[in-house]
């Protein structure tokens, strides 16, 4: 018993000291684990896709038909938006206004997810010019999170669903309807502090707003799943289904400048 107590005291002391060098200790393990983690991530993604194809085989045909129809609608919409974009550009030039710049991006790959919290590890770090608080998105401009900690060749990304994450957002095509997205942990989001006067419906698309300056404007966040409205509360809330799905994403982009 005495031996066990002595062992416990020793490990508590060792790990207390190790916490002063936790960044270096983690960086050491990440550096040689990264290739193995990348391999497991790819295998997991492929296995997951294979298994979901088997279990959801009956729904696939229906989903395929729906997606084809939606794709056709989106092609028409993209053509209309391109036309508007060109018009907008010409008008801005005519009025001598600054044109919208595309983001300066850095490409990275996800190699692992934190065991207990909403964090992921990507394979770019300080050496690649990555700094803390830089936003992280997918190639479809879907918001994933922001850089919370950087190492030499790796960075930790705090997902938007993390409990400490909050930022301003709005509903697509309703500029006046704004609120705050709060992470609830475990890939859950809440759209909070929405004015009672605004109409929010399931299926509404949530985008980032320019208030707060944490993220660039108009990045996709999620879709309203359920609205909670009560006359006894000062604000209404909505449960949000995030658009990003880390088990189906390997590639991400870090916004270096916005």
């Amino acid at each position: 018993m005495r031996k066990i107590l002595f062992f416990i005291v020793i490990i508590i002391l060792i790990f207390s000291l190790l916490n002063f060098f936790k960044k270096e200790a983690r960086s050491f393990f990440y550096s040689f684990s990264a290739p193995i983690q990348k391999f497991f991530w790819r295998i997991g993604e492929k296995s997951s896709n294979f298994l979901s194809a088997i279990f959801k085989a009956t729904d696939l045909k229906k989903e395929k038909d729906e997606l084809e129809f939606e794709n056709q609608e989106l092609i028409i919409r993209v053509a209309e938006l391109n036309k508007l974009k060109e018009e907008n550009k010409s008008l801005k030039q005519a009025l001598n206004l600054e044109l919208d710049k595309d983001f300066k991006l850095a490409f990275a790959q996800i190699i692992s997810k934190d065991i207990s919290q909403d964090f992921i590890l990507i394979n770019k770090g300080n050496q690649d010019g990555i700094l803390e608080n830089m936003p992280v998105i997918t190639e479809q401009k879907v918001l994933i999170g922001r850089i919370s900690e950087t190492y030499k060749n790796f960075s930790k990304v705090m997902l938007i669903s993390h409990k400490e994450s909050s930022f301003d957002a709005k509903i697509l095509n309703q500029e006046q309807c704004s609120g705050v997205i709060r992470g609830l942990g475990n890939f859950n989001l809440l759209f909070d502090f929405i004015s009672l006067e605004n109409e929010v419906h399931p299926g509404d698309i949530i985008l980032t707003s320019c208030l707060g300056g944490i993220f660039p404007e108009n990045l996709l966040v999620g879709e309203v799943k359920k609205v909670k409205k009560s006359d006894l509360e000062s604000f209404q809330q909505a449960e949000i289904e995030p658009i990003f799905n880390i088990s189906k994403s390997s590639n991400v982009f870090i916004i270096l400048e916005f």
Partner: protein
Amino acid sequence: MIRNTLIFIVIFYFLALIQTSFMVHFSIWGLVPNLILFLVIIWNILEKSKNNFGIYQAAAGGFFLDIFSNRLIGFNVIILVFSVIIIKLFLKSYVRIPFLEK
């Protein structure tokens, strides 16, 4: 004992990698099974109560859980070590599994 310890360190290292990179794609409602916790508990239930190898094993498992998470290093070590001690005390005082005692 040292050989067994090294074997378990390697096993826990790979379990931590599998948990954080492979099992993520098979999460249920966002939850991923904690393979290291599962192995530590099973080992300590099956181990003879007078042996203490399971406690050292729990420390190693907890260390790798901490390295691949965002928590303080030592957090999972302390939880696992104390859990194992409680399991051992409980099994020693209240449970007898005859075929394991042989």
